[in-house]
């Protein structure tokens, strides 16, 4: 079962690089997404057994985030078929400066999109911290070409910042992995393997100073990827310059994947008896993110950047929720679902608005309900939902 989850998008990615005609390639994208979602749905009914000696397994956390990712990816793939069709015929002038540019080849775009799904599945289902790290770095690498789909200098700048900042961040979390390995080793040469269940079972034997250091490094490293302020600097750029469906996936799915990484580290740290320490750190980062986002959002004219800062804020709320503990953890999970779905929908709507108006300045978008009534309505509903969920979370 898990083999199929990992293998289907991977095979589809390879095939989409080979297929030369656009029509079948788009069908392949959608059908891979449908298959993947269907398998994830059956996982709810009957949990698949772990494979490779427990390296990959679908535990409740993985189940939840896998479902979110799949629903989003399915929506994005449907959006992609229409989007790619429209992009092919539209005149490619830069929305901001009126420059002409060409798009990246569609085969590469589809291939990277499917590889993105593969790597995200590995991140979520992986129970081994090393494997988790490898897959997390891979998500950075396959999304870089996606952000650089519109080949002009603004998206290039965003891609470069994204690559460099996230790679360094993830290098930091590799160090966290090593610290965890040190914490898990004992004097007599026997050490606990870096698999979640083993670590949880032997948590009392973990070395206290090293496990704390490891958690800090994991939090900073994966936090960079997740967009926790002050490590969020790549996020508004990448989200605003990427094609809208990629922004939707980045915001709704990728940030969650990084959150899974932090949660796994949190579980182990908490099991080793440092719950208060880990919670304080999470709550601190959460509060800082919320403040940063609120300050930067005020003067923001570009509506895609505004959505990106809103993502930073919501990530802050997620971290704060886990940091507070108790019922707030459940709230956080519920919130993750709501936020991902709403934010992704909003990004897709913003893509439609961008296509209709050719501008990203919120002030220039007027008469939305007259020009494109449907996206306009959805957009309004989405903003309301976002506000509503925020209230919901507080109670």
């Amino acid at each position, binding site marked *: 079962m898990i083999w199929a989850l990992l293998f289907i998008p991977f095979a589809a990615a390879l095939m989409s690089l080979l297929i030369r005609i656009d029509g079948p390639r788009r069908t392949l994208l959608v059908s891979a997404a449908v298959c993947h979602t269907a398998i994830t749905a059956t996982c709810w009914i009957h949990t698949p057994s772990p494979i490779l000696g427990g390296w990959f397994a679908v535990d409740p956390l993985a189940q939840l985030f896998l479902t979110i990712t799949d629903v989003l990816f399915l929506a994005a793939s449907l959006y992609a078929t229409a989007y790619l069709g429209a992009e092919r015929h539209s005149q490619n002038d830069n929305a901001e400066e009126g420059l002409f540019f060409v798009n990246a080849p569609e085969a590469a775009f589809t291939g990277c999109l499917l590889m993105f799904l593969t790597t995200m599945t590995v991140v979520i289902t992986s129970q081994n911290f090393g*494997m988790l790290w490898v897959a997390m770095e891979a998500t950075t690498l396959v999304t870089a070409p996606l952000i650089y789909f519109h080949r002009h200098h603004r998206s290039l700048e965003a891609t470069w910042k994204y690559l*460099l900042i996230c790679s360094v961040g993830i290098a930091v979390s590799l160090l966290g992995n090593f610290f965890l390995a*040190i914490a898990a080793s004992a004097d007599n040469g026997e050490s606990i393997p870096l698999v979640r269940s083993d670590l949880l079972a032997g948590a009392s034997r973990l070395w206290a100073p090293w496990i704390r250091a490891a958690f800090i490094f994991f939090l900073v490293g994966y936090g960079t990827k997740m967009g926790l302020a002050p490590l969020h600097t790549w996020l508004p750029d990448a989200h605003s310059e990427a094609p809208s469906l990629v922004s939707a996936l980045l915001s709704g799915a990728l940030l969650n994947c990084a959150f899974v990484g932090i949660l796994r580290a949190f579980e182990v740290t908490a099991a080793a008896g440092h719950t208060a320490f880990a919670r304080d750190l999470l709550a601190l980062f959460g509060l800082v993110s919320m403040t940063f986002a609120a300050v930067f959002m005020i003067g923001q004219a570009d509506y895609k950047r505004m959505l990106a800062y809103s993502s930073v804020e919501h990530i802050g709320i997620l971290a704060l929720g886990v940091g507070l503990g108790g019922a707030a953890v459940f709230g956080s999970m519920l919130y993750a679902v709501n936020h991902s779905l709403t934010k992704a929908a909003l990004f897709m709507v913003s893509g439609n608005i961008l296509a209709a108006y050719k501008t990203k300045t919120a002030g220039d978008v007027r008469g939305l309900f007259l020009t494109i009534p449907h996206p306009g309505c959805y957009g309004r509903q989405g903003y309301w939902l976002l506000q509503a969920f925020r209230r919901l979370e507080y109670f």
Partner: protein
Amino acid sequence: MVLLILTNMVVLGSSRLRVCIRVVAAQGVALGVLPLLIHSFEPQLLIFTVLSVTLKGIVFPYMLWRTLRQLNVWREDEPYVGYGLSLLTGPVALGFSYWISTRLPMPFSVHSPMLIPVALFTLIVGLYIIISRKKALTQVLGYLVLENGIYAFGMAIANQQPLLIELGILLDVFVGVFVMGIAIFHISRQFDHIDTDQLSILRN
């Protein structure tokens, strides 16, 4: 070990990109051979060593050098922090990493007392280069130095990590450098230079 420290200092002090690439390659090779010297001999280890030496000693330098030739950029002019000051930072960072490493309790004996401080030093130098230099290519070099530092750190605990994961890490670094190389190429075509301080349209 001494070689590692020396290569770090050269990277800090040199403005010529070709020299930097060679030196980083030498550092990679030295690091690649190191596990054979400090661990007992195993066939698995040999394969891993050969792989990492070919990647770090031949493939990466070649890719970077090719980019360099296509772009016709040979020097890093005007970094944010001058070369004299950078060279001064080196010993300070080295002292700092020694101080840190004396304060870290290790749960098991490390093969060489130098390993941890040198690894930390390499890490700091890598981060420093990424921050203080302007050219995209030098930033990639800084990233490689950073990875080397982490690799050296991992060597201290090599028997804890399964080989498969190390391979995955190598692969990721490889693809990372590859993608960054392509990105540099596009940057130079779009902007006619690879100075990252000009990449500043996206703000606030």
